[in-house]
């Protein structure tokens, strides 16, 4: 059985663990994340909603996967690690279904698995896991004996980061939502450009979310707690990376100035001003750069600032 799971969702640790779980429990399932080469040019769906480009890209990937699979898994992501995700994720399955229903041919009959994912603790994980497995494999599926895969330990992540940075004298903190930092199309090749210039990259995803969450909690001085998971991840990463990794520069990468990301932008700029060590910082907004050359120019200039190239 071929099952589609859009590649963009794999940026979430929980989805990667779900993938691992499905592999272990149902070897007959072949998971597909990237549309086949023939549909590399993803058709623009009839309706993408009023959302950021990463979300639209995710819808396009899902639609391009549909004709190639027997089922499509697009979970209704509401909450992970006890914190809310962008509300667009809640509507994601509906938007895919809306477009699927308008497709010609057999693809319009492909079932969509849209299990609600609202997870705060391990009990939620097991409950959601079983619901999803039953939707995928059949309602009679028994609860698995083995527990749901646990996240990588902080020690494992630290070792992986150490490996990643081996050979680099300097690092740059690339802070952004997981799907921005992890997708070369969305991040406009920034990690590759920085690496080519001799910089190791440290991202929020190199750390255990619980560590970042704790770091972010130091900034919970609003009338309400900062309850968006992505925002907590970025805020926490800024604090954690600046304190522990002495980056040569910080880049905050966002898709566009949506409410949450605009707030995080202000928060990060404010935190940056308070840093004792004046590390250069730059904000890059994906939507504001229609050409990659624009991004390259800014990166070059940013690296010149770090290098102090204008000092005579």
């Amino acid at each position, binding site marked *: 059985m071929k099952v589609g799971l859009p590649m963009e969702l794999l940026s979430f640790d929980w989805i990667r663990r779900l993938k691992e779980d499905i592999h272990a429990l149902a070897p007959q399932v072949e998971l597909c994340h990237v549309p086949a080469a023939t549909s*590399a*040019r*993803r058709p623009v769906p009839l309706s993408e909603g009023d959302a950021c480009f990463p979300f639209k890209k995710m819808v396009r990937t899902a639609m391009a996967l549909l004709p190639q699979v027997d089922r499509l898994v697009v979970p209704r992501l509401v909450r992970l690690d006890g914190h809310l995700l962008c509300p667009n994720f809640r509507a994601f399955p509906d938007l895919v279904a809306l477009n699927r229903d308008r497709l010609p041919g057999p693809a319009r009959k492909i079932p969509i698995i849209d299990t609600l994912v609202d997870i705060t603790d391990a009990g939620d994980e097991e409950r959601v896991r079983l619901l999803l497995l039953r939707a995928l494999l059949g309602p009679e599926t028994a609860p698995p004996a083995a527990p749901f895969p646990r996240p990588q330990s902080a020690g494992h992540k630290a070792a992986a980061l150490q490996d990643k940075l081996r050979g680099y004298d300097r690092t740059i903190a690339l802070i952004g939502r997981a799907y921005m930092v992890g997708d*070369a*199309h969305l991040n406009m*090749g920034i990690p*590759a450009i920085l690496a080519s210039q001799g910089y190791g990259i440290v991202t929020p995803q190199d750390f255990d979310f619980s560590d970042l969450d704790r770091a972010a909690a130091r900034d919970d001085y609003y009338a309400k707690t900062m309850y968006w998971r992505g925002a907590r991840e970025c805020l926490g990463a800024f604090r954690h990376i600046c304190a522990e990794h002495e980056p040569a520069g910080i880049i905050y990468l966002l898709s566009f100035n949506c409410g949450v990301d605009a707030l995080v932008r202000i928060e990060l*700029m404010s935190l940056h001003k308070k840093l004792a060590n*004046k590390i*250069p*910082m730059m904000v890059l*907004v994906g939507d*504001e*750069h*229609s050409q*990659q*050359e*624009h991004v390259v*120019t*800014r990166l*070059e*200039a*940013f690296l*010149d*600032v770090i290098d*102090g*190239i*204008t*000092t*005579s």
Partner: protein
Amino acid sequence: MESPPVNRTVPVHLGIDVGSVTTKMVLLAADSGEVLDHVYLRTSGDPIRSIRRVMNRLAEDERHFEVLAAATTGSGRTLAAKLIGTDLVKNEITTHTLAALTIAPDVQTIIEIGGQDSKIIIVRERMAIDFNMNTVCAAGTGSFLDQQAGRLGVKVEEMGDMALASQSPASISGRCTVFAETDMIHKQQIGVGRNDIVAGLCQSLVRNYLATVARGKQILAPVVFQGGVAANQGIVKEFEKQTGHPVKVFPYYGVAGAYGAAIYAAKARGERPPFQGFELLRRDFSVDSFTCRKCEEECTVLRLYREAKVISFWNDRCGRYSEAPKK
């Protein structure tokens, strides 16, 4: 086309800034750093032609220049570098900083407004520490002023004096060109004078710049204003009014990027590839592009031809073409 001079006896460093609207060149004496020549001309959508015109000017100069090192900058810097055969390619933020620091070593804030770009560069203790550039919106740039000058039926060069003559600047939106045009048409319709409309435009451009480019960055004096728009005294005065600091406009403000590139060339150490700029006068060069469909990136790959033969590729993110071994 004329042949290049045989005896180039004045050693120079060359800076070329190929912008979206204008192409600039600055030539520095290698021994003194003195500006020996500078050019400011319209790119007119044909950077090869504009660079060729620059080369022609160099070739015709009776001083017989010998280019020791050349550097390019601006949005067309990669193409320019390939055409003249240099490996010194630098972004415009750095070159503008180099220019400002050379002219005003104590500069703390650089405002640069060109044809389609606007930038702010924060300098402290002779080092750029922060910067910002406009992005997709060109509302506060030279092309915006050009467009509005055309609408008002005035020359862009006259706008500064017109603005200074105004006693009551009109309120014009600077948020985007569409809104600004709507406002301007409305003001014209109700009989507001052109000087007041132009002064309003200058006000709105500066307001837009401070809100969207400077974005709260700390503007400290000395403030240096570079780029073609610095010719507009109405804008200069408006910057002084809105920032509360005197704004200095130095000679070569319009070619500051090229000036910085020439300084960068002069500072470069090590052996440089031979200067090939005069080849442009002898041989035919052209450029075209194609969309690579090998992956979802769909890069627009650029291709440079000399005498109808492809000699270089660039702009492919994976290096499939640009880094392929030469056949």
